């Protein structure tokens, strides 16, 4: 992770900072508002990813959401300790991990899915996750690590008829016949749309993954 600084999880550490700034901020806008804006712009976009990580630590999604919420509140309280320009993702993961260790994990021990140490390995891509049986092609790995937000964005970019079939088949688990009835096309068309939708989504996601720095082959036919 390379993050050596450790955020003070306890919070309540802003005395020095706010004293100093209030002395010279007679004309400046509220520093809290400024902090809030920074936090919203920088930390909030990473939230879906943190949620995905939290879901790998605790078994049920409600606990995962609570863990993320606690993490973000702590992160906000120690935001002044975050060094602008350093790795925010790593910083947030550190807080998430500490939050999870301090009580969260204990309280949910029986429901805990995997150890925090496993999480770290997963982060660097060495752990066997749900892809254990899978040939770890670069594409599969990239796909597995893309944040939900990115996948959802790609889904949104599909033509509606195709997205509808894809969601109904893959996410809802309806049969071709059921989808055909719901959408008023024949089951063969459902099959065609499903495979076209997945191909299109795959191409879009491979593009995104390349933008994220994964080396996914340009074309696989």
């Amino acid at each position, binding site marked *: 992770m390379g993050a050596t600084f450790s955020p003070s999880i306890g919070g309540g550490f802003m005395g020095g900072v706010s004293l100093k700034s209030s002395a010279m901020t007679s004309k400046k806008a509220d520093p809290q508002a400024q902090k809030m804006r920074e936090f919203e712009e920088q930390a909030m976009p990473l*939230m879906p990813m943190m949620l995905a990580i939290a*879901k790998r630590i605790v078994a049920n*999604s409600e606990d995962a959401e609570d863990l993320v919420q606690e993490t973000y509140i702590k992160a906000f309280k120690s935001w002044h300790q975050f060094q602008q320009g350093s790795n925010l993702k790593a910083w947030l993961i550190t807080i998430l991990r500490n939050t999870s260790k301090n009580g969260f994990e204990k309280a949910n021990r029986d429901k805990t899915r995997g150890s925090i140490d496993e999480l770290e390995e997963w982060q660097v891509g060495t752990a066997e996750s749900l*892809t254990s049986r899978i*040939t770890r092609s670069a594409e*599969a790995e990239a796909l597995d690590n893309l944040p*939900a*937000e990115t996948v959802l964005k790609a889904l949104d970019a599909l033509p509606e008829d195709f997205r509808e079939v894809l969601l109904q088949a893959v996410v809802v688990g309806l*049969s071709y016949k059921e989808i055909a009835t719901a959408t008023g096309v024949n089951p063969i068309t459902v099959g065609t749309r499903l495979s076209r939708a*997945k191909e299109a989504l795959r191409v879009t996601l491979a593009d995104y993954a390349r933008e994220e720095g994964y080396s996914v082959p340009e074309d696989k036919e």
Partner: protein
Amino acid sequence: MTEFDCQETKRHVHEFLQAELTEAEMDEITAHLANCDSCEADYDFETLFNDVIKRSCDEVPAQELSERILGKIRQTLAEGH
């Protein structure tokens, strides 16, 4: 019934994963996959892909959680933490 060579096997991946084939066809494909790394890799990829899609859709509540977190923080600020 269809002879499941590689081409046919690969062509039927979505039907297989959505359980749209007859039991006999599913068995044929399973037998082919056991002996064919290339087809198996394809099937594994599509299985993972489906999982990624499902998982991502489960995370739609992220939006709501985002609102909740920001609300909490604003509340903390208002109370002078």
